[in-house]
């Protein structure tokens, strides 16, 4: 087989199951790819030194006739927000440099049990606060489509890893778009599951009423295969839903071969006018809608009057919850401790948190402390929680008229590194299309819709469905993907520049 890194996870799984390829070969191919391109891309903060041992064990078990899961032997990249016993977990922060977790995150444990081979930990904005990966304490990740541009964030490392063929699958986390917006700017697929659909146990918490772990991949089916591995109830996470989920891979396969677009009612939000988006993003979005219409989908204008308050509500709720969650970095139990001669424990704590947190983390912790302080709680956090109710009502009303909602996944294509780093408010406005799903708990998926005419960079289309209807997104996503890839004559990533010396 020519280049194992170009295979989808589904194709690689078949090759592994048939014995055509070994997991050691597949893992070695991806480690070689990482060695070749990651100096430029910097998707990884840590590369496992024993991935080949794990792969060899899978090969041995397969040879011994053991019944293995559908993705056994496939390599996996893991966002550094998820704790792992065999690799450091820093959440992109200096304050956790070298932290070794005594336990695995549930999604990591389930991935290991499914036979996935962890390759390493991927870069991210510090504590997942950001939309560009520039807020990582370990330096930015670069977009494989243009190394001078951002790969999105906070999960830019996971998205860049799959876009650069360093891994077929990755785990991400999405608090306000951190899986979907990186997918948009890198021409890949990212899914935020229904709130509670995937365990957050062992995900270093950012904002607990918004955080959701989910899959990152190059195809809708691959995303579904990983989602099948990580979904389901976990008693360690009190917000985990007890639902029994259908097979998402089966939903994706059904979508790819069936005619699910025929008669599908697709909502387009009146309050998100084309004028708010880069021209090439709007054009790509409209082309994708046209392609869906040509397959029999019905485009319906819907109103979501409170979405415009989403960013404001989000930037109250998130900092408030983050300021509370990050109180655990106290220089006592784990992480960095700054030496303050003669200082009390409180002096040491304050000095450590000043030295260990980056500017964006401090900004949000201070903002959250303000929003929660006496006299402001009702006006800010309380009001933001009411906006959540209004946005949920907007979704409920919309889903009486349509099956899914479609939006561009983000307002612009990948911007240049450094372009927005000094303007936090502009950075926050990136998340306008992705935030409502987190506020309301509904699932959302971003899949490639094409390239923007003016800059040749990838654009994603986002689909949103009612709570618990994750499978619907896989059916629709796979159907749209099949239609568009057919029009393009091949996957969008085939048009990305070749990395590794030939740039």
């Amino acid at each position, binding site marked *: 087989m020519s280049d194992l890194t170009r295979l989808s996870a589904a194709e690689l799984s078949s090759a592994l199951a048939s014995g055509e390829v070994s997991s050691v070969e597949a893992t070695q191919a991806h480690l070689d790819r990482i060695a070749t391109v990651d100096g430029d891309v910097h998707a990884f903060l840590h590369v496992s030194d024993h991935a080949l041992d794990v792969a060899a064990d899978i090969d041995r078990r397969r040879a011994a006739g053991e019944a293995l899961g559908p993705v056994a032997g496939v390599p996996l990249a893991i966002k550094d927000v998820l704790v792992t016993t065999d690799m450091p977990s820093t959440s992109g922060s200096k304050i956790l440099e070298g932290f070794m977790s005594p336990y695995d995150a549930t999604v990591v444990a389930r991935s290991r049990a499914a036979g996935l081979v962890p390759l390493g930990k991927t870069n991210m904005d510090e504590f997942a606060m950001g939309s560009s990966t520039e807020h990582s304490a370990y330096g930015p990740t670069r977009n494989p489509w243009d190394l001078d541009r951002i790969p999105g964030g906070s999960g830019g490392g996971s998205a860049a890893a799959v876009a650069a063929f360093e891994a077929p699958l990755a785990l991400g986390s999405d608090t306000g778009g951190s899986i979907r917006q990186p997918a948009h700017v890198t021409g890949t697929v990212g899914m935020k599951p229904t709130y*509670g659909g995937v365990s957050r146990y062992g995900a270093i918490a950012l904002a607990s009423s918004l955080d959701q772990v989910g899959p990152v991949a190059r195809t809708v089916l691959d995303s579904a295969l990983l989602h099948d591995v990580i979904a389901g109830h976990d008693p360690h996470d*009190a917000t985990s*839903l007890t639902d029994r989920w259908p097979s998402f891979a089966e939903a994706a396969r059904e979508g790819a071969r069936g005619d699910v677009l025929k008669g599908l009612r697709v909502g387009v939000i009146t309050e998100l006018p084309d004028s708010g988006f880069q021209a090439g993003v709007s054009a790509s979005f409209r082309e994708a809608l046209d392609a869906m219409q040509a397959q029999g989908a019905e485009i319906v204008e819907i109103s979501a009057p409170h979405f415009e308050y989403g960013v404001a*509500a989000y930037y109250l709720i998130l900092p408030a919850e983050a300021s509370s969650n990050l109180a655990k970095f106290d220089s*006592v*139990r784990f992480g960095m401790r700054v030496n303050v001669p003669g200082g009390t424990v409180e*002096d040491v704590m304050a000095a450590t*948190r000043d030295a260990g947190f980056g500017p964006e983390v401090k900004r949000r912790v201070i903002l959250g402390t303000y929003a929660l302080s006496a006299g402001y709680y009702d*006006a800010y956090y309380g009001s933001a929680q009411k906006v959540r109710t209004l946005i949920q009502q907007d979704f409920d009303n919309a889903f009486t008229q349509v099956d899914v909602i479609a939006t561009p996944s983000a307002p612009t294509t990948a911007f240049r590194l450094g372009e927005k780093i000094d303007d936090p408010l502009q950075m926050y406005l990136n998340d306008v299309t992705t935030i409502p799903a*987190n506020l309301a708990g509904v699932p959302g998926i971003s899949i490639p819709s094409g390239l923007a005419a003016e800059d040749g960079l990838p654009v994603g289309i986002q689909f949103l469905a009612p709570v618990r209807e994750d499978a619907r997104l896989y059916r629709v996503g796979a159907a749209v993907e099949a239609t568009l890839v057919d029009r393009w004559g091949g996957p969008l990533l085939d048009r990305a520049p070749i990395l590794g010396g030939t740039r």
Partner: protein
Amino acid sequence: MSEITPDLVRHLGVLARIQLSDEEVEQLTGQLDVIVDNIAKVSQVATADVPATSHPVPLQNVFRPDVPGDMLTVDEVLQNAPDAADGRFRVTAILGEEQ
């Protein structure tokens, strides 16, 4: 304009246990002012008749059997501690001289 002042930011730093430098206080004051102005618009639609939502998919009474769960050993708990002694976390003085 909001009411974000350098003194307020310095006070928030004390509450958040972050020892901000004067430079940081100055920069944060300007940035937070712009951000707070922008996010304050939530109050335009958050009227008294709208109930608040804390969790998007609410669950009630999430219980588990009253038996010991998966516990970490003391060594595991202390393995990442910046300083430890006698099976405990070791810290500097709790009280300062003036206290």
